[in-house]
């Protein structure tokens, strides 16, 4: 059942279209990735879902409510790209203030705050936020997004600008939240993170969705898995049209046959041997999200998957 539904969402600033007719659904408990280059419309989309920006057109329903409705805000945890915290407050004071604002009873808030900070391994909780490192501040910001125990979490670049250790910690924490049943909308520049935790994703470019689906489906749509067969002789002449390699090139005195599946690999091997050659190596090539991203970012039309 979809906990988040977006239908033809559009945002214009004057004559500039930031988001153009986005539509997608997110299932409960899903980790949903939103990726794209700078200016693709990711943050605008996330902010429209969070109720921060009013759409020019289209609708969004989050946890059964329109973004901006008070009840929806109660069920949402939003982590913006930056950590705009009140630096003069202590971490605990800051979290208690937001818990109060979300009408969380004091005892529940204390328990929840301590639990979040324990899990995030945040020390020096009574230190002023302004005196904390960037990583610690980010953890406080994540704890703030959880203070109301939301159904839906929107994480915009949660690990942006952090060291690898903290980044991994946050990614792992996000995975734990997903395991607990939270629905997470996750945006990141680092596609490795998206690839590692997202169940489904959309790729945006110039305000439009250019690819969508599971990572496997997107891979499939953008070439899928390829097999590189290296041999001492060119076997392509002995192959039928159906088994013809996608590409045949010469590399370091060897012939590389690029084929789409294992049947084709077998056909190439037989053809090479028929040509008095032999297969020296077979490699499997799966396109990374980054490669797909670079490919689709240059394509204006959406790839149906």
């Amino acid at each position: 059942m979809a906990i988040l539904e977006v239908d033809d969402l559009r945002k214009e600033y004057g004559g500039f279209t930031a988001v153009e007719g986005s539509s997608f659904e997110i299932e409960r408990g899903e980790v949903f990735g939103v990726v794209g280059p700078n200016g693709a419309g990711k943050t605008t989309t996330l902010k429209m879902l969070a109720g921060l920006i009013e759409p020019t057109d289209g609708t969004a329903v989050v946890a059964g409510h329109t973004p901006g409705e008070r009840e929806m805000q109660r069920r949402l945890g939003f982590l913006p790209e930056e950590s705009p915290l009140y630096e003069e407050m202590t971490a605990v004071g800051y979290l208690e203030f937001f818990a109060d604002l979300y009408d969380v009873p004091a005892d529940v808030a204390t328990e929840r705050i301590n639990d979040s900070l324990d899990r995030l391994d945040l020390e020096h909780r009574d230190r002023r936020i302004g005196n904390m490192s960037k990583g610690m501040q980010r953890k406080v910001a994540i704890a703030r997004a959880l203070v109301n125990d939301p159904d839906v979490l929107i994480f915009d670049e949660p690990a942006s600008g952090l060291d690898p250790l903290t980044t991994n910690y946050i990614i792992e924490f996000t995975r734990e939240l997903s395991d607990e049943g939270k629905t997470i909308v996750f945006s990141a520049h680092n596609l490795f993170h998206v690839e590692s935790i997202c169940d489904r994703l959309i790729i945006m470019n110039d305000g439009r969705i250019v690819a969508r689906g599971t990572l496997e489906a997107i891979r499939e749509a953008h070439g899928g898995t390829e097999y590189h067969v290296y041999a001492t002789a060119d076997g392509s002449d002995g192959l039928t049209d159906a088994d013809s390699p996608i590409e045949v090139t010469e590399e370091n005195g060897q012939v590389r046959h690029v084929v789409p599946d294992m049947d084709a690999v077998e056909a190439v091997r037989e053809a090479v041997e028929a040509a008095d050659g032999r297969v020296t190596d077979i490699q499997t090539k799966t396109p990374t999200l980054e490669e797909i991203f670079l490919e689709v970012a240059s394509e204006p039309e959406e790839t149906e998957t």
Partner: protein
Amino acid sequence: MSDGRRSAFADRLRRLSNSIARTGRIARWEVTASAGTVDRKTAVALVVLVLAAGTAGVSVSDEGLGLEREIYVVGVAEESQYHDVAVEAEQFRPVPLEDVVAESGGGNADTIALREDANVDVVVTRDGRIAHDGPNGAAAYDEFRSAVETYNANLMDRESDQAAAYPVLVSLEYQDRDLGGTTADGTRDDGGGTADESSDGGDGTTDGGTDSDGDEPATGGGGGGDDGGDDRLQVPNVGGSGASSAPGTPGSIAPPFPFDSLVLAFLFVVPMNFVIQAYGSTIMDERLNRRGELLLVSPASSREIVAGKTLPYLLGLVGIVVAIAVGIGGSPLAVAAALPIALLFLAASFTGAMFARSFKELTFVTVTISVFLTTYTFIPAIFTDVNPIALISPLTLIVMDLQDESVRLGEYLFSTGPFYLSAAVLFLLGVGVYREEDMFAQKPIPAKVLDAVANRLRGRRSIALLSILFIPFVFAGQLLSVALLFAVPEVVAVPAVVVAAAAIEELAKSVGVYAGFARSRFDATAKTAVVLGAFSGAGFFLGEKVTHVVQFVGLPDLLIGTAAFGPAVSSDPLLLAVVFLAPLGLHVVTAIPSAVGASRGRTGYAVGFLAATLVHVAYNLGVLTLVS
């Protein structure tokens, strides 16, 4: 009440209660967060500073500054008549004569021998001679002589028989006169009674209380003399209020405005200038680095956030205002008059902080607000005793209160109404841009103003509402133009006010329409522009009627007032029709060219606005001609 209605009412009540609770939480947090920016030592220093300033303020209010208190030492015997002079004059500290002179008796020769350890500036011997010693002696001597004169003058003032205290010497000189009553030197004697005409002349007596041309006693306009009808000689009094002042001395001249009350009233405005700096900064803090974004995504609405952040500063100002009122002896009226000023200071700072792009720009904005509002409130109050125009400032009400003058409800509404309404509209505009898309956007201030105005537009009819909302600003702007041009000769002031009044009104009517077109809230067609212009003009007409409150204080009786607000309501039906219906036609007719121009862009708007203003000026001149 049906169950459905009861349930809806209960639901509304619960939401209101929750809203108040959230506002309170944000206010409490604002105090905590602001306190977090000040370390303990600074906080203690601030408290000490405030207490010291408060004590000093009360002391000054009670006893004056005392900068010259006991700066000179005077050696004088207790039984000397000069001893009381030294005690009464604050500059002097009397010490026993025997402590400073070497010889018993204070010296009877030409020179006075002082003891070696004597630390004294002036010495008064037992036989009344006054001498001075040391580097400050000469100045102390002069000061002592002045103190003696003041002391004597005060003694005279306290004298029950003023004729004895201030005997009048009259020289009589008889001149021939003809039957027509013209004296030899050409002046006319109307028989006012300089000399006692009932006498047969030459007895040399005068009847008291008349000067040479038979008018009332010269009182210098102050009213300090006793004109109760008895036959006592009236004491001339320059300046009026100084019962203890010696007549005719410079110190006894009082300025023609309530200086003391004015200075005390100004005390209310001073802390507002400081508080808005802190308030503007806290609003700006929310906007920089997107710190306020997380509050916006919380269940708290923009209104609750703004109210919560404003409340501590408003309550702080109310506390300060009450403390000042208590300190200077003002009544609750002084607090009620200061409150709208405080509100407008906060509202203007809030809106300014929402428009500024940086702390640098905020500084410019808050300084502008400080200067403008301080000027707007203070300058008119100078004329409290002179002209009703002074009532455009609530500070005038405070001055009146301190002078124990009564204030009518109409005067209070006239004076504070524009302040309350302007503050409300400014908060409304500011809250309109307290949202992600506007508060973090880096735009020039005029563009932000247009955003704020455009955000309040909900369809064509809202243009009429917007025109009504701008009425307080129109009212304040026109009153200010009247106040600024008050001292200018009417030949210049009246045309200037006519043009200013027209331009202000046309701006108020057209800015909403322009913002609507500039922000694509309306289709930029001529038909739409005409409809919007008509709505704007009609709305403005309705709102303008509110300005007839000026008639509470009779401002239109002044020609300059008429130039700005139009003539007073008359019982003449024709004039009534002109007063009430002609403006409707005027406002609709002039709003349309501005609106059509606005639909064509910035240049078109400028041209349309100019044309509308010219038509409006012509109308105003016609009204003036009709009235005069």
